[in-house]
């Protein structure tokens, strides 16, 4: 700790603080323009200059200068104010001052400072900027005439996002911020630059001329897309979400968001939302009253009883899932599952067998302090972009070594020092086994209280790095290096992301990863962790609440099998669209056709078109409750808008259904949460009303394994086929709901089939050409996208788009043999 005096006030602060931070902590105001909490000190704007008695003769930038013992700081004096005012005058000489039409007006730092320092007239004269605005892309507008060159966009894109879209170009007064070759912005459109810009130079285009900042009501809630659980602040006006705003003081994400979180909100305002219940009459879905719909459903459910199948999405709140569980027990059915049942559940089940727990062992802030990180699957950034940014921070701030077990290159492979351990598709387990083998063989394993070491050692004899490298086309030396780093690191993390397109071998991968986490001592060690990241916003909640088949109950896939065979008369789909997203579309359609189908969703989805009753549900922006994210953090959702028409939240629908089934239900989410803390291990003691801005992590920052059992798992033989298709997630989308959002759709509007350069040459295909993939007699067609991240012979297709019909050939395999041809 260091003692210093600021404006006569005695202050004790951390040795690592800057003068600005020390002042802020103690409620002393120093104006800033280029400073940002989450970025490295920069010192460009000179607004935060102060006087330091020990450094007489010049003014000291408080945002970059570390505190020293005995420092005496003055934050305001006539001289300081004069210099600050001069700097503002300088800025205003060339700035266009078009505040009346600037969307930033009202929350612009330059405006506020100008006002604060009463820069009424300007002593200086000069030319006004007249630079062209960048309106090439649909999401982010750049108007460099308003830019103050604080460099926040450049820095955040580099330091946090790791994309590096921006740089300063030119020198002197002509300096400006530009993209490569000063062309239009073309990046991953996460919009971090938008959130950081202190002036109106970088703005979200969808929000242009929608509202003045002060007309917006800010509502802090949790993003409804992935399991990262980012805080989003809804900017609400006229019962519509007008924009997603920036709040770096709340939540796990320091205000960072991805393209989906920041620009993917428009589906909640969409005119095609369902507003009334629909009942199939005379072969057509017709509008009906809630009562009629509920009575119909209740009768059918009661009649089906234990033969009712319930498949839920993982974007329902914990409280809604609790009620859904009550419905299943009221009816006596054990056929209950959620989308994660196809993938995430396998993962957690694997972990349960080895460690007796079924959740990530650490929290995101710990990852930032890791020295070594292993990401299993290259799509990790694509499924969980903001967690990817956390990994980038570990690399930037902590010099962490990242290794990626990958069947294709992704964003993570591009991060500094990233080591990509490429392998043939479908062979992740072989790679993880090889890592375990090295750790045991080289005596690096932390073997205390591990069970099954002998068996594992024996089973891994066939997984020497050399053998595995030869079999799956990997680099043995790289495997060894990674293994040694993971075993030797003070803090290390293993991260695995899962989702509907990765259903194969999920349990085995979890076991293999657990073995590695146990051998390296990562599991349960403070600062280290094994991270299992479900695809959806409440994947972890669904596991915690055990939205999984009961004794002898059927899982999602089995329910569909059974329904297709006519053995499950009634199916209830809540927030799921299996026709588009589940493997084996043919089977799904057959199942939906044969059963009495109730669908509860926001839209008339492809699955809902098969329904006998459709119930209009509410989006995450319209409800209260909690989500549990991938690090076990329980966070509160807050309703920002009212649902359209007669649409109701799943909570209200379940309440009504329970009533129709003559059961009681908690009156509100808060009460429901109170009940579930009594039922869910780990949630005990958490009080709904006390869940603060940072949420509550159940089980503590580090979740200790309840047991440590090593279980051998066999790897897979690489598929022998000239062309192999991988199914996965694209960065711009999450599930299928993002395809109904203007933002993601404006930059990634249609399905595509991605090819590597070599294959594109062989097949004579260019980006934009139509190509066809044939597998097991079925063909799908799409536009081609040629890129350089896929190895030869590997083809990739994202699963989000209904139009592609990818699940006509994807039936749950890890990799699919296909025959591509140009159309």
């Amino acid at each position, binding site marked *: 700790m260091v003692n210093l005096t600021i404006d006569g006030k005695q202050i004790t602060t951390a040795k690592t603080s800057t003068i600005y931070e020390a002042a802020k902590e103690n409620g002393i105001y120093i104006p800033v323009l280029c400073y940002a909490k989450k970025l490295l000190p920069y010192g460009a704007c*000179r607004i935060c*200059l102060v006087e330091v008695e020990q450094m007489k003769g*010049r003014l000291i930038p408080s945002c970059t200068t570390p505190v020293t013992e005995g420092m005496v700081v003055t934050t305001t004096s006539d001289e300081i104010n004069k210099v600050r005012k001069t700097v503002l005058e*300088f800025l205003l*000489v060339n700035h266009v001052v078009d505040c009346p039409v600037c969307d930033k007006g009202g929350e612009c730092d330059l405006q506020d400072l100008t006002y604060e320092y009463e820069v009424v007239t300007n002593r200086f004269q000069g030319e006004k900027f007249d630079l062209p605005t960048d309106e090439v892309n649909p999401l982010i507008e750049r108007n460099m005439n308003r830019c103050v060159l604080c*460099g926040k966009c450049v820095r955040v894109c580099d330091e946090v996002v790791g994309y590096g879209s921006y740089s300063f170009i030119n020198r*002197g*007064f*002509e300096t400006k911020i530009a993209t490569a070759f000063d062309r239009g912005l073309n990046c991953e459109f996460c919009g971090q630059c938008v959130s950081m810009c202190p002036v109106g130079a970088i703005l979200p285009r969808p929000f242009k001329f929608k509202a003045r900042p002060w007309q917006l009501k800010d509502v802090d809630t949790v993003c409804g897309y992935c399991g990262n659980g980012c805080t989003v602040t809804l900017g609400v006006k006229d019962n519509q979400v007008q924009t997603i705003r920036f709040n770096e003081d709340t939540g796990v994400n320091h205000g960072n968001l991805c393209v989906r979180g920041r620009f993917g909100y428009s589906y909640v305002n969409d005119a095609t939302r369902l507003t009334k219940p629909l009942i199939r009459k005379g072969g057509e879905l017709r509008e009906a009253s809630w009562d009629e719909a509920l009575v119909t459903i209740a009768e059918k459910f009661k009649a089906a009883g234990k033969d009712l199948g319930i498949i839920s999405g993982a974007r329902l709140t914990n409280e809604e899932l609790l009620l859904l569980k009550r419905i299943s027990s009221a009816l006596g059915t054990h056929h209950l599952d959620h989308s994660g049942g196809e993938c995430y559940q396998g993962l957690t089940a694997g972990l349960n067998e080895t460690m007796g727990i079924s959740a990530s062992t650490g929290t995101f802030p710990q990852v930032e302090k890791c020295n070594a990180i292993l990401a299993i699957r290259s799509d990790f950034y694509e499924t969980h972009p903001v967690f990817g940014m956390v990994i980038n921070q570990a690399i930037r701030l902590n010099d962490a070594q990242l290794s990626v077990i990958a069947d294709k290159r992704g964003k993570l492979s591009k991060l500094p020092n990233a080591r990509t351990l490429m392998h043939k598709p479908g062979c992740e387990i072989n790679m993880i086994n090889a890592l375990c083998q090295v750790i045991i063989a080289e005596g690096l394993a932390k073997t205390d209280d591990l069970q099954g070491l002998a068996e594992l050692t024996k089973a891994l004899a066939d997984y020497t790095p050399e053998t595995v490298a030869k079999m799956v086309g990997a680099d043995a030396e790289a495997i060894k290096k990674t293994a040694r780093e993971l075993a030797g690191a003070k803090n290390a993390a293993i991260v695995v992301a899962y989702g509907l397109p990765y259903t194969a071998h999920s349990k085995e991968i979890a076991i293999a990863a657990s073995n590695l986490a146990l051998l390296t001592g990562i599991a349960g060690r403070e600062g280290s962790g094994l991270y299992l990241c479900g695809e959806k916003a409440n994947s972890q909640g669904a596991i915690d609440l055990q939205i999984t088949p009961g004794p002898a109950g059927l899982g999602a896939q089995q329910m569909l099998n059974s329904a297709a065979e006519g053995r499950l008369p009634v199916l209830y789909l809540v927030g799921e669209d299996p026709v588009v997203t589940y493997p084996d579309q043919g089977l799904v359609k057959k199942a939906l056709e044969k059963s009495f189908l109730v669908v509860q969703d926001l839209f008339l989805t492809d699955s809902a078109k098969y329904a006998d009753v459709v119930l209009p549900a509410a989006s995450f922006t319209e409800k209260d409750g909690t989500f549990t994210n991938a690090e076990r953090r329980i966070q509160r959702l807050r309703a920002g808008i009212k649902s359209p028409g007669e649409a109701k939240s799943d909570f209200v629908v379940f309440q009504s259904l329970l009533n129709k089934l003559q059961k009681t239900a908690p009156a509100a989410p808060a009460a429901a949460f109170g009940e579930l803390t009594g039922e869910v291990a780990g949630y005990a003691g958490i009080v709904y009303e006390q869940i603060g801005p940072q949420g509550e992590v159940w089980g503590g920052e580090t979740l200790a394994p309840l047991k440590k059992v090593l279980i051998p798992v066999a790897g897979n033989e690489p598929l022998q086929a000239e062309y192999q298709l991988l199914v996965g997630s694209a960065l711009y989308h999450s599930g299928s709901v993002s395809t109904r959002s203007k933002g993601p759709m404006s930059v990634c509007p249609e399905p595509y089939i991605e090819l590597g350069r070599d294959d594109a040459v062989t097949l004579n295909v260019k980006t934009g050409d139509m190509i066809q993939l044939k597998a097991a007699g079925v063909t799908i067609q799409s536009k081609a996208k040629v890129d350089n991240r896929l190895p030869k012979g590997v083809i990739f297709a994202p699963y989000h788009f209904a139009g592609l019909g990818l699940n006509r050939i994807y039936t749950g395999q890890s990799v699919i043999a296909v025959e591509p041809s140009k159309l």
Partner: protein
Amino acid sequence: MSETAENLKVLICTGTGGLASGAASVVAAFEAEFEKKGVAAKIGSACDVNSTGCRGLCANDVLVDICKPGEEPVTYDFVTPDLVPQIVDEHVLGGNPVEKKVAGPYYHQFLEKQQRIIFSRCGTIDAESLDDFLAHRGFTGIQKAVTMSQDEVINEVKKSGLRGRGGGGFPTGLKWSFAKGSPGDTKYLICNADEGDPGAFMDRSVLEGDPYGLIEGLMIGAYAIGCKFAYVYVRAEYPLAIKRLQLAIDTCYEKGFLGKNCMGLGFDLDMRIKAGAGAFVCGEETALMASIEGQRGMSRPRPPFPAVRGLWGYPTNINNVETFANVAYIFYNGADWFSSIGTEGTKGTKIFALTGKVKHTGLVEVPAGTTMKEVIYDVCGGILNNRKFKAVQAGGPSGGCLPAEALDAEVDYDSLIKAGAMMGSGGLVVMDETTCMVDIARFFLNFTRVESCGKCIPCRIGLKIMLEILERITQGKGQEGDIEMLEDMAYDIKKSSLCGLGQTAPNPVLSTIRYFRNEYETHIKDKECPSHSCKELLHFRVIEDKCKKCGICPRVCPVDAIEWEKGKVAYINLDKCTRCTSCYDACRFMAID
């Protein structure tokens, strides 16, 4: 080696200045002539034609020394290939120097007040020859240094009183002790050779003329601090310097002088050149490090200082070329010897690059404490065309202009700062009565405004506005209050800028206002340029009583606007005149205003 003393030696200046004047063809001519005439056989000893570094008097290149065994060397200046046969015939073979071509007494005068220590090898040895370097005490400094502990080496440098020659004048030994004291095994040493001041080229001369000497200085520094990797950041505009230094580094690696266990002395040092990409600001140490890292050359805030967190986040020590060159000599001759040269506050010698309106432009090395007057008048022969001295700009764009009254200032760090300038890297731009001081301020500010990295607001925008005001003044559009506004802005910019560039950029304006305020006032109030130098303020009239009727102006006029007959005062027809200023520049009598 012993034989070479018996050889006839021809030393030819092949620095950038020499080469620009045709040194390469002079070298070829000597070699060809020796071959053709069988000179070696005739005089009975081998003939070495040595390409040396610069010897200072660049204005008179190509300079050639003929060193016959047992005789005083004879220096020729303005040598061209045509002259070579005559020199060979009459001097080398005949024994009689070609008197008409031998450099005049000014050459000895040029050397007389100098004390050429750092330059002792420049111009004497073959810059590309390791053997020649070794024959001139090369690498004896590092051999001595390694017999001492790291702290003893640093103390020796501290004792010598050496201060950074890059301009700031920070005590070198102290700086080294900071970097040595920083924890960690990975440390970097950087030699800043991004010499970018207008009119400064002393570092280039050292790099071209004595590259091994620089390497030796770096080795001593690296040993003292505990660095295993040294960068030399040379501006890409110095291709010859880069070539020779690279050759020297390669030779050192080949001979085991660099790399693992340097010279068998028990320490490792790798060295690499990083060619700068043409930004003045990269001479600023934090921007320089950013540039080495592959980032855009932009300054970073200090603290943390490089000694704590520098290149790639590791402790780093940065010194200038001349500083490292000095270090080698401190270890040849001892700290006491070094500290016996110079003044109380500034020890050793300082190299100055003289350009502008001075007779003998070039490089001079004088002991600290020599007065400005001695440098300009005694060493460099005074003002060109015998015009009146007006000012000297010391310290480049960061320094200031000193008037005639300040000519008695001694050249050391403290006196120059007191006089309103600074030592800087050592560029001296001499100005005569034809130079307008407002225009000079404008010139330097234009330089810094263009070279500002654009990061901090005062430097990026403030300098541009100051420049615009100065431009207005030189165009006769100055307003009452402009001077006060400039002073006020200069103060704020100096106070608030991020790095040395912005903090010192207003100095030329402040020093010219301080010493030549009347010139500003005349521009603003009378719309006149007292030096008749600002183009927009010239009247293009011939001043009758100054005109010597020489007739040079009509000859240079490109549009035949000047009427002149022999014996008559010239007349400029303003209807035809395009105001190109050719006549003004050509007139040696200041007869056109």
